[in-house]
């Protein structure tokens, strides 16, 4: 217990020294790699972070050659279940604050979580937008096969909020378990439209196209990250979360289409 507390103090001090408080996100310079870091950490990250976190992991390992970062990507509620059932995780990156609050309330987190990115929603369609979808209202048109994420997946919850804000009522054909599942069904041509994050459309490249949702109807998703109480490598885990909120980490995230944390 003592060592865990002291690691948190060290990490907090490191962040403070870099000029940012732990509860807000950072505009701090990249933390200098510590030569003492070693071992493995396993990062449980929301499915929508797959491409960006894989890139972050690669550059983090390059800066800290002694550390191996392993990722487990899934829909946020799946990750929460896995962590609560004892899966060995050091860091948890959630696609919403509700699931993070749940982890904190249930006593699985060590210290406060950091907001590291924001994201917004976009309609995903096939390349060339063959159904001519221009906004959320078009999802309810007949002949448009619309799918979304289940309401427990953050993106699915946000999609419901956006549809409500737009005053659109539409019954999806399927409630998929993650944003990546929705994207793949659009890529395969099995569905015409879905609501996903802007970053997912960016990541899928030319295989799909995006239709923007106006700001008045859009939902801004907040991504918090935290070191978990059960971590067996607190030093490396805190180094990773600091890296994600550092200037280097933030520029990687924005290159994948995320909105900066601050």
């Amino acid at each position, binding site marked *: 217990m003592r060592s865990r507390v002291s690691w948190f103090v060290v990490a907090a001090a490191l962040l403070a020294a870099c000029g940012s408080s732990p509860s807000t996100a950072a505009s701090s310079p990249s933390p200098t790699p510590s030569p003492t870091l070693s071992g493995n950490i396993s990062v449980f990250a929301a499915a929508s972070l797959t491409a960006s976190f894989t890139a972050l992991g690669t550059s983090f390992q390059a800066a800290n050659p002694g550390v191996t970062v392993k990722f487990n990507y899934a829909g946020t509620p799946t990750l929460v279940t896995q962590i609560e059932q004892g899966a060995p995780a050091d860091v948890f990156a959630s696609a919403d604050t509700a699931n993070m609050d749940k982890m904190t309330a249930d006593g699985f987190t060590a210290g406060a979580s950091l907001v590291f990115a924001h994201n917004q929603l976009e309609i995903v369609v096939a390349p060339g937008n063959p159904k001519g979808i221009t906004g959320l209202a078009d999802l309810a048109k007949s002949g448009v096969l619309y799918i979304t994420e*289940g309401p427990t997946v953050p993106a699915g919850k946000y999609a419901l909020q956006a549809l409500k804000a737009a005053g659109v009522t539409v019954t999806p054909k399927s409630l998929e*378990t993650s944003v990546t599942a929705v994207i793949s069904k659009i890529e395969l041509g099995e569905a015409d439209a879905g609501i996903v994050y802007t970053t997912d459309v960016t990541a899928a490249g030319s295989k799909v196209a995006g239709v923007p949702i106006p700001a008045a109807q859009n939902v801004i998703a907040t991504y918090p990250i935290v070191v978990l109480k059960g971590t067996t490598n607190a030093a490396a885990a805190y180094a990773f979360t600091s890296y994600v909120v550092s200037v280097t980490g933030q520029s990687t995230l924005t290159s994948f289409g995320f909105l900066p944390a601050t």
Partner: protein
Amino acid sequence: MRRERVPIIVAALAAIGAAFFILPLLGLVVRSPWGDAVKALTAPETIEALKLSLFASLSATAVGLVLGVPLAWVYARVEFPGRDVLRALTTLPMVLPPVVGGIALLLAFGRRGLFGSWLDTTFGITLPFTTAGVVMAETFVAMPFLILTVEAGLRSMDRRYEEAARTLGASRWRVFTRVTLPLIGPSLFAGAALCWARALGEFGATITFAGNFPGVTQTMPLAVYLQLETNQESSFILSLVLLLISLVVLIGLRDRWLGSA
């Protein structure tokens, strides 16, 4: 029969082997909130998923009987080149990861699939995200169990009864319905029951090919998986229901499937 003395090492390993299977089941039984069982079982989502599961798995068994029995008959009675390869292809889903089966189904019967795009443009029929898609996914995964069981039954039956009936002037159809089918009745029943139980438990191919929507494509296993994230106690109870059904089927079939002891 003389009772054989069991070497201690064999007994110990066998006990560990048995515990490996029994402990997870025990975990489910112990951790299930029995007080909430009735509430979980009568929740509208559960009833909906249960109804859909029963309908889809029974339909898959019916399709399996109509298409699988002729296939088994061909395998058992007709010599033709490539029979073993064909049998391997048609029973592949027994060992294939079901998600792979679901992807294969999408590529064949999806809206842009080899055959599915023709179905869509010609008849306007699309199978993914429909209950028919669930039945297809379940049939794909479960029918091989029926084919192999019925083929084994056809091979082991005494064909002299068929020959006798033929010499007495019965038509081939009459021989098949009055002699062959009754003789392979136990295999037919066992094959259908195994097929049904496997269809009832199908998850991977269903969620991949048919998606997940309550009342249309959300079967019991999908409901269990999703409730694990929202309502764990309820998912434990639903798991137990599926477990009990499987156990009843296996115990009921022990003589026919494993051969009588």
